[in-house]
């Protein structure tokens, strides 16, 4: 390293040092501590007492833990693919050449700007049994009315429906990806007589595959941690049908004061997300096309 490089390195380190300090004290240290607490009986107020693997053993036998896990994966299984398809579909529509394009793009992004709690309360009304608009619309085609948030069989689908409302962020990312597809490819395809559908299937989708991949991974992490919407809309009910993993974790930590148990749950969630993300990476990698490679 030359003297100039050393100097640059020193300056660089100096400027990022607040971040390093912040990272170490607010992320790294709490993570390490939470790993330790997950092996302890810890109520936040009394000093932690070491238990070994007891929290993890108890979790395996905790019926509610499995219920919350089942609910979370059930939710993820529907919310993630549906969310991805909706976002992609909207992005493709918003990428076409129509009048008032800017207006439409804004409209579809707006719900993502609404605070989650406000959105949750709004959707409580939208799904309301008596005067909710969803039941009104279904009534027109002779269906329902349904007790969306009060029936254990419908509460999770009701929440999946609600999350479809906030696809604005992935839509924006898809749009950016779509704008990046070289026009020349479409022109070449058109000369060869390709239809719109063929263009989408053989050019658009492969070209934005890294974006789809990114959104899938982020979406996967997001749905497994779902908290605010069900917390406000159903509080986990009825009869625990919408008690998701993060909510049970929160209750253990802050309502029942079992912080050690909650830490163990947090690490299991971390492990699951890591494994799922890595599997997604292995599985989808062959379908992802990078323009630069």
């Amino acid at each position, binding site marked *: 390293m030359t003297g100039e490089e050393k*100097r640059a390195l020193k300056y660089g380190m100096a400027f990022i040092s*607040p971040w390093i300090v912040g990272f170490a004290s607010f992320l790294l240290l709490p993570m390490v501590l939470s790993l330790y607490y997950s092996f302890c009986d810890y109520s936040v107020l009394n000093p932690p007492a070491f238990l070994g693997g007891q929290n993890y053993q108890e979790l395996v036998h905790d*019926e509610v833990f499995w219920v919350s896990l089942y609910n979370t994966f059930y939710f993820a299984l529907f919310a993630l693919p549906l969310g991805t398809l909706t976002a992609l579909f909207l992005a493709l529509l918003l990428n076409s050449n129509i009048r008032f394009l800017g207006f439409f793009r804004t409209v579809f992004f707006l719900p993502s700007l609404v605070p989650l709690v406000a959105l949750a309360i709004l959707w409580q009304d939208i799904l309301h049994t008596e005067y909710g608009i969803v039941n009104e619309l279904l009534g027109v085609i002779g269906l329902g009315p349904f*007790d969306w948030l*009060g029936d254990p069989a419908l509460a999770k689908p009701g929440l999946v429906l609600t999350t479809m409302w906030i696809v604005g962020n992935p839509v924006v990312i898809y749009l950016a990806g779509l704008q990046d597809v070289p026009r020349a490819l479409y022109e070449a395809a058109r000369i060869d007589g390709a239809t719109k559908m063929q263009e989408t299937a053989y050019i658009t989708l492969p070209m934005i595959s890294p974006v789809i991949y990114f959104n899938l991974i982020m979406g996967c992490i997001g749905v497994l941690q779902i908290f605010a919407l069900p917390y406000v809309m159903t509080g986990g*009910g009825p*009869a625990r049908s919408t008690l998701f993993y993060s909510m049970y974790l929160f209750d253990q930590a802050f309502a029942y*004061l079992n912080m050690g148990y909650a830490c163990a749950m947090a690490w299991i969630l971390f492990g699951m997300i890591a494994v799922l993300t890595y599997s997604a990476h292995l599985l989808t990698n062959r379908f992802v096309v990078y323009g630069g490679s």
Partner: protein
Amino acid sequence: MKDYTPYIIVAILILGISALFIPRDLDDMTDDGRVKIRYWEKWTGFEKDAMEAIVDKYNASQDKVYVEFISTSQIDRKLLLATAGGNPPDIAGFWSHAMVSYAEKGVLYPLDSLMERDGLSRDDYVPSIINTCVYRDFVWGLPATPATVALHYNKDSFREAGLDPEKPPTTIEEFDRYARLMTKVGEDGNYTHMGFVPNDPGWWDQFWGVWFGAKLLSDDGKELLCNSPENVRAFEWYRSYVTNYDSEKVRFFSSAHRGQFASSSNSFMSGRVAMKQQGVWMANFIEKFGDGMDWAAAPFPSASYVTGGPATIVETDMLVIPRGSRHVEEAWDFIKFVQKQENIEELCLLQKKFSPRKEVSEGFYEKHPNPYIRMFRALAESPNAQAVPKTPVWIEYRDELGVAQERLWVTPPDKLSVKDALDRVKERMQPKLDLMNERWEAIGQQRLEEWSNL
């Protein structure tokens, strides 16, 4: 020459960041030399305004202490974290139902020695009310305002059904009959009005046993009694409001009013449900949202075999001193001020509740805006007034009972019996209680000594 610039940058940045973490109020004095203490209170709206008036009165009454009043949401969680972080407020407005687990975990400061020193006694208060502030024979807070619950009913609905509005039902059996009479079906076959819906608003779903002579916890605190015959009977009664009616339509009707408490769409105030179990505070909401409705309140009827007086649930909003408060003496001085008969009655009048003190001044009831205030107070004095069970697993036990209740509400009786649902609650919660009791046996003596010496 050596270049020190990077080191200077680092130093400035670190100093700047650490400045953010210097507690704002290390300096606990006001400009005019008073000790400043912080008081966190959960109330909002007119209840907050009422307490603020008392705080102002206290601040004006002397020149040694200044109480800084802060209205905050989620007081339990914030208090827990602030105490754990070593910087709690000096006084907090707390709930009696959460007191036990917080006292046992060491969040609160026992007030017995201070009370004794300054001549305050448990005997000054209505026994059922001060009892909500006591755990393991220590007083963990003193009442701000107490509350009991009672039957509220719509007199017009009584008249329409040919019932005498001056004669509320006196037994559960009569109550059920009245409820049926006031239930109406619309042209589309759905219920338009119901006499009663037991899970609306769902605040005491776990407690219906109180009106059936049941308890949720044994007197020694060692056994959960949720599946006792009396509780099973109470839960059967609760469920009869789905099974004895058109189940699906009742569920629909009740879910239409979910989360509509403080609004004119509230099932009771909109006239769609004729009878309701509600607290002493309900009069305020009826005044605000009831559009001049003609209502009355009476003790909620018990099962005919229950003797000894009307049943109710007692709850107390209490003032506590968190452990780690830097100004225990000053905080205590304020609590003492609130406890003075004159001040606590002023607070209770402003909040439209009854006084927790045994002695009540002349004219208090005459001045009171709630015409049924004497009845609410009499309920607190009834031998069948019950408080939340005093066990450190209460919050989880309550949630578990709530889940059982929801399951019973949505599952047909041939798929799930009341006894099975309640047995399941006991199976899940009893081991947790046993564990807590074992722990107490190991450290209890040490804790009691520690508390006595505080």
